[in-house]
Protein backbone atom coordinates (compact mmCIF):
# COMPACT_ATOMS: atom_id res chain seq x y z
CA UNK A 1 0.00 0.00 0.00
CA UNK A 2 1.19 3.58 -0.63
CA UNK A 3 2.28 5.80 2.27
CA UNK A 4 -0.23 7.71 4.42
CA UNK A 5 0.48 11.01 2.63
CA UNK A 6 -0.26 9.57 -0.82
CA UNK A 7 -3.42 7.91 0.51
CA UNK A 8 -4.51 11.15 2.21
CA UNK A 9 -4.08 13.11 -1.06
CA UNK A 10 -6.04 10.41 -2.87
CA UNK A 11 -8.92 10.65 -0.38
CA UNK A 12 -8.90 14.46 -0.62
CA UNK A 13 -9.18 14.10 -4.41
CA UNK A 14 -12.18 11.78 -4.03
CA UNK A 15 -13.87 14.18 -1.61
CA UNK A 16 -13.31 17.07 -4.04
CA UNK A 17 -14.74 15.07 -6.96
CA UNK A 18 -17.87 14.37 -4.92
CA UNK A 19 -17.94 18.03 -3.81
CA UNK A 20 -18.07 19.24 -7.44
CA UNK A 21 -20.98 16.95 -8.30
CA UNK A 22 -22.87 17.91 -5.13
CA UNK A 23 -22.14 21.58 -5.71
CA UNK A 24 -23.40 21.51 -9.30
CA UNK A 25 -26.58 19.77 -8.16
CA UNK A 26 -27.05 22.35 -5.38
CA UNK A 27 -26.45 25.18 -7.89
CA UNK A 28 -28.90 23.55 -10.35
CA UNK A 29 -26.17 23.29 -13.00
CA UNK A 30 -25.77 19.52 -13.15
CA UNK A 31 -27.27 19.12 -16.62
CA UNK A 32 -25.75 22.34 -17.97
CA UNK A 33 -22.28 20.92 -17.25
CA UNK A 34 -23.23 17.26 -17.62
CA UNK A 35 -19.90 16.22 -19.22
CA UNK A 36 -17.88 17.83 -16.45
CA UNK A 37 -19.98 15.94 -13.91
CA UNK A 38 -19.76 12.73 -15.94
CA UNK A 39 -15.96 13.05 -15.90
CA UNK A 40 -15.88 13.19 -12.10
CA UNK A 41 -18.39 10.36 -11.76
CA UNK A 42 -16.20 8.27 -14.04
CA UNK A 43 -13.22 9.39 -11.93
CA UNK A 44 -14.95 8.02 -8.83
CA UNK A 45 -15.53 4.72 -10.62
CA UNK A 46 -11.89 4.52 -11.65
CA UNK A 47 -10.81 5.34 -8.08
CA UNK A 48 -12.87 2.39 -6.86
CA UNK A 49 -11.31 0.14 -9.52
CA UNK A 50 -7.78 1.29 -8.69
CA UNK A 51 -8.39 0.73 -4.99
CA UNK A 52 -9.60 -2.79 -5.71
CA UNK A 53 -6.45 -3.64 -7.69
CA UNK A 54 -4.25 -1.91 -5.13
CA UNK A 55 -5.65 -3.81 -2.16
CA UNK A 56 -5.75 -7.13 -4.03
CA UNK A 57 -2.40 -7.12 -5.87
CA UNK A 58 -0.31 -4.42 -4.17
CA UNK A 59 1.29 -1.21 -5.44
CA UNK A 60 4.23 -2.79 -7.21
CA UNK A 61 2.16 -5.30 -9.17
CA UNK A 62 1.74 -5.18 -12.93
CA UNK A 63 -2.02 -5.54 -12.46
CA UNK A 64 -2.24 -2.30 -10.48
CA UNK A 65 0.03 -0.40 -12.87
CA UNK A 66 -1.98 -1.67 -15.82
CA UNK A 67 -5.25 -0.63 -14.13
CA UNK A 68 -3.76 2.75 -13.20
CA UNK A 69 -2.56 3.72 -16.67
CA UNK A 70 -5.52 2.16 -18.48
CA UNK A 71 -8.06 4.08 -16.36
CA UNK A 72 -5.87 7.18 -16.69
CA UNK A 73 -6.06 6.96 -20.51
CA UNK A 74 -9.84 6.43 -20.32
CA UNK A 75 -10.24 9.38 -17.96
CA UNK A 76 -8.21 11.58 -20.29
CA UNK A 77 -10.59 10.67 -23.12
CA UNK A 78 -13.52 11.54 -20.83
CA UNK A 79 -11.84 14.85 -20.11
CA UNK A 80 -11.64 15.45 -23.87
CA UNK A 81 -15.43 15.07 -23.91
CA UNK A 82 -15.69 17.65 -21.12
CA UNK A 83 -13.39 19.95 -23.11
CA UNK A 84 -15.50 19.48 -26.23
CA UNK A 85 -18.60 20.41 -24.22
CA UNK A 86 -16.80 23.63 -23.23
CA UNK A 87 -16.02 24.23 -26.94
CA UNK A 88 -19.71 23.78 -27.63
CA UNK A 89 -20.51 26.22 -24.81
CA UNK A 90 -18.21 28.89 -26.26
CA UNK A 91 -19.19 28.42 -29.91
CA UNK A 92 -22.84 27.64 -29.06
CA UNK A 93 -24.19 30.93 -30.35
CA UNK A 94 -22.20 30.90 -33.58
CA UNK A 95 -23.30 29.40 -36.88
CA UNK A 96 -20.41 26.96 -37.12
CA UNK A 97 -21.28 25.17 -33.88
CA UNK A 98 -22.34 22.15 -35.99
CA UNK A 99 -18.86 21.95 -37.54
CA UNK A 100 -17.24 22.23 -34.12
CA UNK A 101 -19.27 19.27 -32.91
CA UNK A 102 -18.46 17.29 -36.04
CA UNK A 103 -14.74 18.09 -35.71
CA UNK A 104 -14.84 17.20 -32.03
CA UNK A 105 -16.46 13.82 -32.67
CA UNK A 106 -13.88 13.04 -35.38
CA UNK A 107 -11.06 14.07 -33.05
CA UNK A 108 -12.42 12.02 -30.18
CA UNK A 109 -12.93 8.94 -32.34
CA UNK A 110 -9.47 9.41 -33.85
CA UNK A 111 -7.83 9.70 -30.45
CA UNK A 112 -9.79 6.74 -29.09
CA UNK A 113 -8.90 4.56 -32.11
CA UNK A 114 -5.25 5.62 -32.00
CA UNK A 115 -5.05 4.91 -28.27
CA UNK A 116 -6.84 1.58 -28.73
CA UNK A 117 -4.51 0.52 -31.56
CA UNK A 118 -1.49 1.47 -29.49
CA UNK A 119 -2.80 -0.35 -26.41
CA UNK A 120 -3.62 -3.51 -28.40
CA UNK A 121 -0.18 -3.57 -30.04
CA UNK A 122 1.67 -2.91 -26.81
CA UNK A 123 -0.41 -4.78 -24.28
CA UNK A 124 2.64 -6.28 -22.63
CA UNK A 125 4.46 -2.98 -22.43
CA UNK A 126 1.61 -0.89 -21.07
CA UNK A 127 2.84 -1.11 -17.50
CA UNK A 128 6.31 0.09 -18.51
CA UNK A 129 7.78 3.30 -19.92
CA UNK A 130 5.42 3.15 -22.88
CA UNK A 131 2.43 3.97 -20.66
CA UNK A 132 4.21 7.14 -19.56
CA UNK A 133 4.68 8.18 -23.15
CA UNK A 134 1.06 7.48 -24.09
CA UNK A 135 -0.24 9.53 -21.14
CA UNK A 136 2.22 12.32 -21.89
CA UNK A 137 0.97 12.51 -25.50
CA UNK A 138 -2.70 12.40 -24.48
CA UNK A 139 -2.20 15.22 -21.98
CA UNK A 140 -0.24 17.23 -24.50
CA UNK A 141 -3.04 16.96 -27.09
CA UNK A 142 -5.46 18.10 -24.36
CA UNK A 143 -3.18 21.03 -23.59
CA UNK A 144 -3.06 22.10 -27.26
CA UNK A 145 -6.86 21.85 -27.57
CA UNK A 146 -7.36 23.90 -24.39
CA UNK A 147 -4.88 26.52 -25.63
CA UNK A 148 -6.79 26.83 -28.93
CA UNK A 149 -10.07 27.18 -27.02
CA UNK A 150 -8.58 29.86 -24.75
CA UNK A 151 -7.31 31.79 -27.79
CA UNK A 152 -10.79 31.61 -29.35
CA UNK A 153 -12.36 32.79 -26.10
CA UNK A 154 -10.12 35.83 -25.99
CA UNK A 155 -10.89 36.57 -29.63
CA UNK A 156 -14.64 36.20 -29.04
CA UNK A 157 -14.37 38.25 -25.83
CA UNK A 158 -15.97 35.56 -23.70
CA UNK A 159 -17.25 37.04 -20.44
CA UNK A 160 -18.91 34.16 -18.56
CA UNK A 161 -16.88 33.78 -15.36
CA UNK A 162 -17.63 30.09 -14.93
CA UNK A 163 -16.66 29.12 -18.48
CA UNK A 164 -13.49 31.26 -18.33
CA UNK A 165 -12.36 29.72 -15.05
CA UNK A 166 -13.28 26.17 -16.08
CA UNK A 167 -11.16 26.46 -19.23
CA UNK A 168 -8.21 28.09 -17.44
CA UNK A 169 -8.21 25.45 -14.71
CA UNK A 170 -8.31 22.75 -17.36
CA UNK A 171 -5.37 24.38 -19.13
CA UNK A 172 -3.42 24.42 -15.86
CA UNK A 173 -4.27 20.78 -15.25
CA UNK A 174 -3.26 19.57 -18.72
CA UNK A 175 -0.04 21.66 -18.68
CA UNK A 176 0.98 20.40 -15.24
CA UNK A 177 0.34 16.76 -16.14
CA UNK A 178 2.03 16.97 -19.55
CA UNK A 179 5.09 18.61 -17.93
CA UNK A 180 5.08 16.03 -15.16
CA UNK A 181 4.95 13.05 -17.55
CA UNK A 182 7.54 14.60 -19.87
CA UNK A 183 9.86 15.12 -16.90
CA UNK A 184 9.30 11.50 -15.91
CA UNK A 185 10.25 10.41 -19.44
CA UNK A 186 13.32 12.65 -19.48
CA UNK A 187 14.77 11.77 -16.13
CA UNK A 188 13.45 8.23 -15.58
CA UNK A 189 12.45 9.46 -12.15
CA UNK A 190 8.91 8.53 -11.00
CA UNK A 191 7.79 12.15 -10.69
CA UNK A 192 4.23 11.25 -11.60
CA UNK A 193 3.90 8.92 -8.64
CA UNK A 194 4.56 11.80 -6.23
CA UNK A 195 2.96 14.72 -8.04
CA UNK A 196 -0.06 13.24 -9.82
CA UNK A 197 -2.19 13.05 -6.66
CA UNK A 198 -1.63 16.73 -5.87
CA UNK A 199 -2.18 17.87 -9.45
CA UNK A 200 -5.25 15.62 -9.66
CA UNK A 201 -6.77 17.47 -6.70
CA UNK A 202 -6.30 20.86 -8.35
CA UNK A 203 -8.90 20.43 -11.09
CA UNK A 204 -11.87 19.36 -8.90
CA UNK A 205 -10.85 21.99 -6.32
CA UNK A 206 -10.69 24.84 -8.86
CA UNK A 207 -13.93 23.76 -10.56
CA UNK A 208 -15.77 23.34 -7.24
CA UNK A 209 -14.67 26.79 -6.08
CA UNK A 210 -15.78 28.28 -9.41
CA UNK A 211 -19.13 26.48 -9.29
CA UNK A 212 -19.70 27.55 -5.69
CA UNK A 213 -18.53 31.16 -5.89
CA UNK A 214 -19.89 32.27 -9.24
CA UNK A 215 -23.45 32.15 -10.46
CA UNK A 216 -24.17 31.27 -14.09
CA UNK A 217 -24.99 34.93 -14.74
CA UNK A 218 -21.64 36.18 -13.37
CA UNK A 219 -19.60 38.07 -15.97
CA UNK A 220 -15.99 39.30 -16.31
CA UNK A 221 -14.56 42.25 -18.20
CA UNK A 222 -12.78 40.63 -21.17
CA UNK A 223 -10.14 43.38 -21.36
CA UNK A 224 -8.93 42.38 -17.88
CA UNK A 225 -8.08 38.87 -19.06
CA UNK A 226 -5.50 39.94 -21.62
CA UNK A 227 -2.07 39.89 -19.99
CA UNK A 228 -0.56 42.60 -22.18
CA UNK A 229 1.80 45.26 -20.88
CA UNK A 230 0.72 48.61 -22.30
Amino acid at each position, binding site marked *: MPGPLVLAIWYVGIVLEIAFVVCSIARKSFFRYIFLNAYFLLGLGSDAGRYFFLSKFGQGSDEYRYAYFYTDALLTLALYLALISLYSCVFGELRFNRYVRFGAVILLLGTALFSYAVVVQSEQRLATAFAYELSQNLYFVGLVLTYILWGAMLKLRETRTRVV*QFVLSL*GLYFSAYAACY*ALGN*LSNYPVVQYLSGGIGCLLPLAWTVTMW*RHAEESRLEPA*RLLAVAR
Partner: protein
Amino acid sequence: MMAALIFAVSVVTLLMFFVSYCRSLTAASSRYALSKEVRDVTGIHAFASGQDFTRVMQLLQLCPERPEDRLGLRAVAYYFEILNFLQKTVARLTPSVESWAEQERAGCANFAVVALDRRIAFSREVLAQQGEL
Protein backbone atom coordinates in the same frame (compact mmCIF):
# COMPACT_ATOMS: atom_id res chain seq x y z
CA MET B 1 13.93 15.05 -27.73
CA MET B 2 10.12 14.88 -27.99
CA ALA B 3 9.77 14.72 -24.20
CA ALA B 4 12.08 17.75 -23.82
CA LEU B 5 10.00 19.73 -26.31
CA ILE B 6 6.73 18.74 -24.59
CA PHE B 7 8.23 19.65 -21.22
CA ALA B 8 9.34 23.11 -22.42
CA VAL B 9 6.00 23.90 -24.11
CA SER B 10 4.03 22.61 -21.09
CA VAL B 11 5.98 24.76 -18.63
CA VAL B 12 5.43 27.88 -20.76
CA THR B 13 1.69 27.21 -21.13
CA LEU B 14 1.44 26.33 -17.44
CA LEU B 15 2.79 29.77 -16.59
CA MET B 16 0.51 31.43 -19.13
CA PHE B 17 -2.60 29.65 -17.86
CA PHE B 18 -1.60 30.42 -14.28
CA VAL B 19 -1.29 34.15 -15.02
CA SER B 20 -4.62 34.15 -16.89
CA TYR B 21 -6.31 32.21 -14.09
CA CYS B 22 -5.09 34.70 -11.49
CA ARG B 23 -6.19 37.58 -13.70
CA SER B 24 -9.66 36.03 -13.98
CA LEU B 25 -9.77 35.79 -10.16
CA THR B 26 -8.74 39.41 -9.65
CA ALA B 27 -11.04 40.60 -12.47
CA ALA B 28 -14.00 38.91 -10.77
CA SER B 29 -13.50 41.12 -7.69
CA SER B 30 -12.90 44.38 -9.54
CA ARG B 31 -16.53 45.53 -9.47
CA TYR B 32 -17.09 44.68 -5.82
CA ALA B 33 -18.23 47.60 -3.66
CA LEU B 34 -16.33 47.55 -0.36
CA SER B 35 -18.28 47.76 2.89
CA LYS B 36 -17.77 50.60 5.38
CA GLU B 37 -16.20 48.22 7.94
CA VAL B 38 -13.45 47.06 5.63
CA ARG B 39 -12.80 50.62 4.44
CA ASP B 40 -12.36 51.71 8.06
CA VAL B 41 -10.16 48.74 8.97
CA THR B 42 -7.83 48.98 5.97
CA GLY B 43 -7.98 52.72 5.28
CA ILE B 44 -8.61 51.89 1.60
CA HIS B 45 -11.54 53.88 0.26
CA ALA B 46 -11.86 53.05 -3.42
CA PHE B 47 -9.15 50.84 -4.96
CA ALA B 48 -6.12 49.28 -3.24
CA SER B 49 -2.53 49.75 -4.40
CA GLY B 50 0.14 47.06 -4.71
CA GLN B 51 1.77 48.20 -1.47
CA ASP B 52 -1.39 47.33 0.49
CA PHE B 53 -1.23 43.63 -0.37
CA THR B 54 1.05 42.42 2.45
CA ARG B 55 -0.82 44.43 5.08
CA VAL B 56 -4.21 43.14 3.91
CA MET B 57 -2.90 39.55 3.88
CA GLN B 58 -1.82 40.01 7.51
CA LEU B 59 -5.30 41.30 8.37
CA LEU B 60 -6.81 38.30 6.61
CA GLN B 61 -4.94 35.97 8.95
CA LEU B 62 -6.74 37.55 11.89
CA CYS B 63 -10.16 36.53 10.56
CA PRO B 64 -11.66 33.02 10.58
CA GLU B 65 -10.95 31.24 7.30
CA ARG B 66 -13.54 30.61 4.62
CA PRO B 67 -12.65 27.38 2.76
CA GLU B 68 -13.81 28.76 -0.60
CA ASP B 69 -11.26 31.62 -0.35
CA ARG B 70 -8.23 29.48 0.26
CA LEU B 71 -7.37 28.41 -3.30
CA GLY B 72 -7.89 31.87 -4.78
CA LEU B 73 -5.85 33.62 -2.10
CA ARG B 74 -2.98 31.17 -2.42
CA ALA B 75 -2.93 31.46 -6.22
CA VAL B 76 -3.05 35.27 -6.08
CA ALA B 77 -0.28 35.34 -3.43
CA TYR B 78 1.97 33.31 -5.80
CA TYR B 79 1.02 35.60 -8.66
CA PHE B 80 1.93 38.61 -6.52
CA GLU B 81 5.37 37.08 -5.86
CA ILE B 82 5.90 36.56 -9.60
CA LEU B 83 4.95 40.20 -10.20
CA ASN B 84 7.38 41.33 -7.48
CA PHE B 85 10.11 39.32 -9.17
CA LEU B 86 9.21 40.88 -12.54
CA GLN B 87 9.32 44.36 -11.03
CA LYS B 88 12.78 43.76 -9.60
CA THR B 89 14.18 42.34 -12.84
CA VAL B 90 12.60 42.90 -16.28
CA ALA B 91 10.54 45.94 -15.30
CA ARG B 92 13.69 47.95 -14.49
CA LEU B 93 14.60 47.85 -18.17
CA THR B 94 11.14 48.39 -19.67
CA PRO B 95 8.87 51.07 -18.17
CA SER B 96 5.71 49.64 -19.79
CA VAL B 97 6.20 46.36 -17.88
CA GLU B 98 6.77 48.41 -14.70
CA SER B 99 3.40 50.15 -14.94
CA TRP B 100 1.64 46.95 -16.00
CA ALA B 101 3.10 45.01 -13.07
CA GLU B 102 2.07 47.76 -10.65
CA GLN B 103 -1.47 47.68 -12.05
CA GLU B 104 -1.54 43.91 -11.61
CA ARG B 105 -0.20 44.16 -8.05
CA ALA B 106 -3.00 46.61 -7.29
CA GLY B 107 -5.48 44.06 -8.70
CA CYS B 108 -4.05 41.41 -6.35
CA ALA B 109 -4.37 43.78 -3.38
CA ASN B 110 -7.95 44.55 -4.37
CA PHE B 111 -8.71 40.83 -4.51
CA ALA B 112 -7.31 40.43 -0.98
CA VAL B 113 -9.39 43.38 0.30
CA VAL B 114 -12.55 41.85 -1.18
CA ALA B 115 -11.67 38.52 0.48
CA LEU B 116 -11.21 40.38 3.77
CA ASP B 117 -14.58 42.04 3.35
CA ARG B 118 -16.22 38.65 2.76
CA ARG B 119 -14.46 37.15 5.78
CA ILE B 120 -15.65 39.99 8.02
CA ALA B 121 -19.21 39.52 6.77
CA PHE B 122 -18.89 35.76 7.31
CA SER B 123 -17.62 36.27 10.88
CA ARG B 124 -20.54 38.59 11.60
CA GLU B 125 -23.00 36.02 10.29
CA VAL B 126 -21.45 33.28 12.45
CA LEU B 127 -21.56 35.54 15.52
CA ALA B 128 -25.18 36.47 14.81
CA GLN B 129 -26.11 32.79 14.50
CA GLN B 130 -24.37 32.01 17.79
CA GLY B 131 -26.22 34.92 19.41
CA GLU B 132 -29.55 33.50 18.24
CA LEU B 133 -28.71 30.14 19.83
